[in-house]
């Protein structure tokens, strides 16, 4: 029977004379797999339900996330720790579906030219990120990341934040009216806090209204949405001090001799359950 279909003047030959039937059958062929793969996830799967205690990005973090997208960070950094021992040791606990529920778009990435960032929140002090963006080789000798000095000089414009949050609410992020209306003020308040901490860590002044602050806010939140909010307490106090000494150039003790002392390394064992 199959042979009757494909032989030289078989049924398929007849089909070749009917372009519109042929097109319909092609469409059916490609829609079958599409429907079978998507239907469960869109209709019945509950992996998209965020845990009740899960936080949503603050307005400033959304602004930072959009900067992350603008600069194309996702082209070189993944945000998806796979459930392998070597990845958990290197980056932290593996990523779950629920904690990506507020990611529109997802930023999992497909290439690790640089390390994974899914759990980078709280790993380094704010000032480390500021220095790293300004000149990656100042904090990470040998890095091939581009410099992003303009992030420290360009003013962050929050004018369209309400529109952005409104669009995000439409796609399912739980923002209330008050947050949307006061988005700019909320963002500025959080930016002021971060900028003050940067100054306290010995960093440059006047970063509160610059793009870098939004990006730092976002990076420090990565991997922590399902936990009590950030983040600096992930580092032991002496680790912060050591890092800051390196960053600010004031080194009271012995000068560091190896990269390992300059670079605050990820915790060796994940401290999350």
């Amino acid at each position: 029977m199959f042979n009757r279909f494909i032989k030289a003047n078989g049924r398929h030959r007849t089909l070749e004379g009917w372009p519109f039937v042929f097109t319909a059958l092609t469409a059916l062929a490609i829609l079958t797999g599409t429907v079978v793969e998507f239907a469960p996830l869109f209709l019945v799967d509950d992996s998209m339900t965020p845990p009740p205690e899960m936080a949503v990005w603050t307005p400033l973090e959304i602004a930072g996330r959009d900067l992350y997208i603008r600069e194309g960070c996702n082209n070189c950094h993944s945000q998806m720790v796979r459930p392998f021992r070597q990845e958990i040791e290197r980056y932290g606990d593996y990523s779950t579906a629920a904690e990506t529920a507020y990611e529109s778009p997802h930023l999992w990435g497909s290439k690790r030219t640089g390390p994974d960032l899914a759990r980078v929140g709280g790993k380094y002090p704010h000032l480390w990120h500021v220095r790293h963006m300004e000149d990656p080789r100042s904090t990470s000798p040998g890095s091939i990341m581009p410099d992003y000095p303009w992030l420290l000089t360009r003013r962050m414009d929050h004018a369209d934040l309400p529109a952005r949050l409104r669009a995000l609410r439409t796609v399912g992020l739980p923002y209330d009216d008050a947050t949307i209306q006061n988005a700019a003020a909320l963002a500025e308040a959080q930016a002021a806090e971060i900028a003050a901490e940067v100054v306290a860590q010995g960093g440059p002044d006047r970063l509160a209204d610059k793009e870098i602050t939004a990006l730092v806010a976002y990076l420090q939140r990565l991997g922590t949405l399902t936990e009590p909010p950030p983040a600096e307490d992930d580092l032991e106090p002496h680790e912060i001090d050591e890092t800051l000494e390196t960053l600010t150039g004031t080194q009271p003790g012995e000068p560091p001799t190896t990269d390992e002392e300059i670079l605050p390394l990820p915790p060796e064992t994940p401290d999350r359950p």
Partner: protein
Amino acid sequence: MADLAPAATAPPRPRPALDVFRYDDAVVRLFVLATIGWGFVGMLVGALLALQLPFPEANLGPYLTFGRLRPLHTNAVIFAFAGNAIFAAIYYSTQRLCKARMFSDWMSRFHFWGWQAIIVAAAITLPLGITTSKEYAELEWPIDVAITVVWVVFAVNFFGTLWRRREKHMYVALWFYIATIVTVAVLHLGNSMAIPSGLWNSYPIYRGVQDALVQWWYGHNAVAFFLTTPFLGLMYYFLPKAAERPVFSYRLSIIHFWSLVFIYIWAGPHHLNYTAVPEWAATLGMVFSVMLWMPSWGGMINGLFTLRGAWHKLCESVVLKMFVIGITFYGMATFEGPMLSVKTVNALSHYTDWNIAHVHSGALGWNGFMTFGMIYWLVPRLWKRPLWSPRLANAHFWIGTIGILLYVLAMYTSGITQGLMWRAFDETGRLLYPDFMETLLQIRPMYWVRLIGGTMYLGGVVLLMVNVWQTLRHAPRDLSDPAVAVPAVSATPAKQIPVA
């Protein structure tokens, strides 16, 4: 039904009346020139990216950093270079396979200029940082709308031509064009659904896991239906033409067409092995990816075996040489793809340069060389002038082939090296290379080798540009479309060798 042309059921006449008409080759010439021009631009950006990786000082200012240029490179090469190439192939071969001029000259021009405008818009917005971040779909929503409009016009033009055809049966190349046009429309609409927050910003309606699955359903099938099916159609038309041999097997073409079209669409989730997508989805994607190996090789076999008894022609035909190396790379890449989708392999290869090697053996080997072969075959026919220098074309073949080999060998080395270093433990059970930087410094020399290989391949394109330019300079002024006379009724059954 519209496709049952009344003529087809009319009683056969001994001497059918002749229809005289002209093919629209002017639009094919435009698409060929655009292919060459954008190919050069896209690959030049690729070479700059290849330089930026080992030499970060080559990241210039805010607009020309790696993160902003990488989507420009992928979009330019996929949608501008390969896109214009497949449009050239479709507009040239569809008219001949249907024995009909394109349905609408106006639509053909709208398609050409609309597509070029979209490319220009991409080249402006991506360096400005206007991007959705979704791979191979980075263009923001106003450009997505424009793509939809142009694609619909293209589809109407194409199906209108099918409707007006003078050949009863559709040759296999046309099947692949149909699959391309239908599926790209579905993929583009499905993946680009977004809520705008302004003119140049939007958020996808999908979140997290859903967004990832939709993205790789799109991303993988952009490879399938933008870089594979139209190029198989191209192969089925231009390879038998250049070899002057009928296609190896009609039955194989039926079996591999339908299995390819049915199976490809399932394979997307293999890009998400071991991520937070449900495991059943990733496993399903892996299983179908492995199944995909066979229909893919059906195409390779049908292509290579078409040359049975004609292999000696490779000695004198650079076109055939390029087709053979292109189809060979297709075979290697479609073996490698299923292999990479297997979870144990993917655990090592994912996130590394191995993927970069894989896509470039497909893009440079298969898409690139099929395109170049087609151009070297088309240019003398479209401009009515023999190719300026077959020897230069031969040099293009060799410099390009060696360039690809350098490129992919460097990336295999770097990908496997880094993948192994990331997972290495010492005897006490601690990471052997806890500092990511160590693994990067290890592979940095390979980035220089890749730059050399990529630059050689780009050099081959420069040779193509010189050759085409010199041919065009000596082309006759009168390039008016040739008049064709065909029987008003197709009296003979369609042959397996394209008739034109």
